[in-house]
């Protein structure tokens, strides 16, 4: 694209740009080479070699989260939670680097609102896993529920199995990778980021998406309003291969069969509004 630096062009081709409407339309570019700079006042300085584990079976949800916090506060960088019992809201709000291993399944809102930890969940997760995640990685070994990665803002969220409906609804960044199928309305109102579905996608994929990119390896039952096929580039294929290989989900036949879905951007009618009104719409 004319007038852009090489780096901005690369970012543009990878679908990692967005538009910010602030008085006038401006394109803001995310640098793929930018380091991860996440530091929070409430984050803890932990040592990955300092390991702790505890049994969550007899604990209330608040006690489990408090226990994780206490261990991080005392410098533990690797924490194993056993017997979570598919209960809700476990591991939420962790704002620092951490190896968190969940030995079992989580209920709703598991590891939501996190910024930095690497989480591995040996079981399945319920609705809204890792919602609003800012950074880090979450890997789910079994299946996931609906609204997987809702409003995701950054990091990698991976499910090796199938997930429910409305995966990545309202996602604003980051990457969601699904090893199996995803349900209806996945990518609904997606604004940024990338979603990769190795299996099939349900009806109305990418409905009303503003931006971002969806890759599907299987069949798409139907596309949603304003979701259109995009052209796969070499950069897309390279990124897909690298990312799927990283999580051992690269199909044996490669990524040549993947389809790319992007926003048609025909719903961007608010561009006709006055600058002050644009802020209200957004």
């Amino acid at each position, binding site marked *: 694209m004319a007038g852009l630096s090489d780096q901005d062009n690369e970012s543009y081709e990878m679908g990692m740009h967005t538009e910010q409407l602030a008085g006038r339309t401006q394109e803001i570019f995310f640098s793929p080479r930018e380091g991860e700079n996440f530091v929070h006042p409430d984050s803890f300085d932990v040592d990955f070699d300092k390991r702790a584990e505890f049994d969550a079976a007899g604990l209330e949800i608040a006690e489990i989260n408090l226990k994780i916090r206490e261990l991080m506060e005392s410098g533990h960088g690797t924490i194993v939670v056993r017997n979570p019992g598919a*209960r809700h809201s476990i591991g939420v709000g962790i704002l620092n680097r951490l190896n968190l291993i969940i030995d079992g*399944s989580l209920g709703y809102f598991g590891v939501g609102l996190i910024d930095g930890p690497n989480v591995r969940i*040996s079981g399945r997760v319920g609705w809204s896993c890792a919602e609003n995640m800012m950074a880090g990685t979450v890997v789910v070994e079994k*299946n996931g529920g*609906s609204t997987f990665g809702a409003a995701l803002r950054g990091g990698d969220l991976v499910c090796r199995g199938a*997930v*429910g*409906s409305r995966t990545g609804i309202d996602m604003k960044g980051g990457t969601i990778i699904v090893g199996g199928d995803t349900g*209806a309305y996945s990518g609904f109102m997606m604004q940024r980021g990338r979603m990769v579905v190795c299996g099939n996608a*349900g009806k109305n994929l990418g409905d009303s998406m503003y931006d971002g990119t969806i890759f599907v390896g299987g069949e798409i039952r139907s596309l949603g309003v304003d979701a259109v096929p995009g052209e796969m580039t070499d950069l897309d294929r390279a990124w897909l291969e690298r990312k799927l290989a990283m999580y051992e989900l690269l199909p044996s036949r490669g990524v040549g069969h993947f389809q790319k879905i992007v926003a048609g951007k025909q719903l961007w009618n608010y561009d006709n509004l006055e600058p002050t009104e644009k802020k209200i719409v957004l």
Partner: protein
Amino acid sequence: MCGIAGLIHRGTTADIGTEVTNMLQSLKHRGPDSTGFAIYGQPVADEYVMRFKVAEQEDMATGFRIHDEIKERRAIVDSRFDEKGAVMLSQEDATEYAYRYRFTFDGDLEQLARYIEDVEGAEILSLGSGLELIKDLGDATTVSGQYGLNGFQGTHAIGHTRMATESDVDIRSAHPYWAYPYNDISVVHNGQITNYWLMRREMERRGHRFMSNCDSELLAVYTADKLNNGYTLEESLAQSIEEIDGVFTYVVATADCLGMAKDTMAAKPMVLYESEDTVALASEEVAIRALIPEEIETYDPYDEEVRVWQA
């Protein structure tokens, strides 16, 4: 919000009363207003089991004569049984206002049921050969203890924890629903049906009766109507997705089957576990964990998905 659960043991029986109680208790946070069970025991040939009440739980705190009135209502019910020629085998008092009768009867069962419900305050909760329907205010442990469900042997069951949104907090509006006068059909539902009144009028024109203003009752009546007209349970569930509007996930049980259907939006949750001998399904996995604590494979059914399992 509401929580629903179902469980079926294929080819065997188990202490299904305790199992479903544990599942529903773990879903208490989805709705604490009332809890209901539809449990399918082993049917005995030529025998009927009827669960009914002659007052609401809240009635017990009102009026000076309520305790006497309840006795009078029950006496009228008993006399009507005698009058119609039913042979009583046993009578159990689950609570002061809810009872379980076992009887044999050769006459018109629908007519008998209508005659009993003609008694003031009387409502048949279930009538059939295998189904026993219990519902009351309180959480699963409370209702189960009150009605002595622990130890109840059966093949399959469904249950419901209710957060009242569309109708009153009373037994009448609690799930499961049984579709009078069809034996052994019960339904639990999580969601909202938006063409309820339209569909209800259609069902009423066909002669069906509704005992509540709860939209979930429509699903029981609808299922009974379909099965009565020769549809299979699977066909009925599939057609309901086409004909009934709203966001819903519901579970249906018949004398020997368990089924589920999910709406076109997949907006209401359901988690499924299926093995060779057991199928468990619930609004949340935590309910299945109450039954099977070890790591298992579970998944969410998708939109418009219909499943049926045989006992």
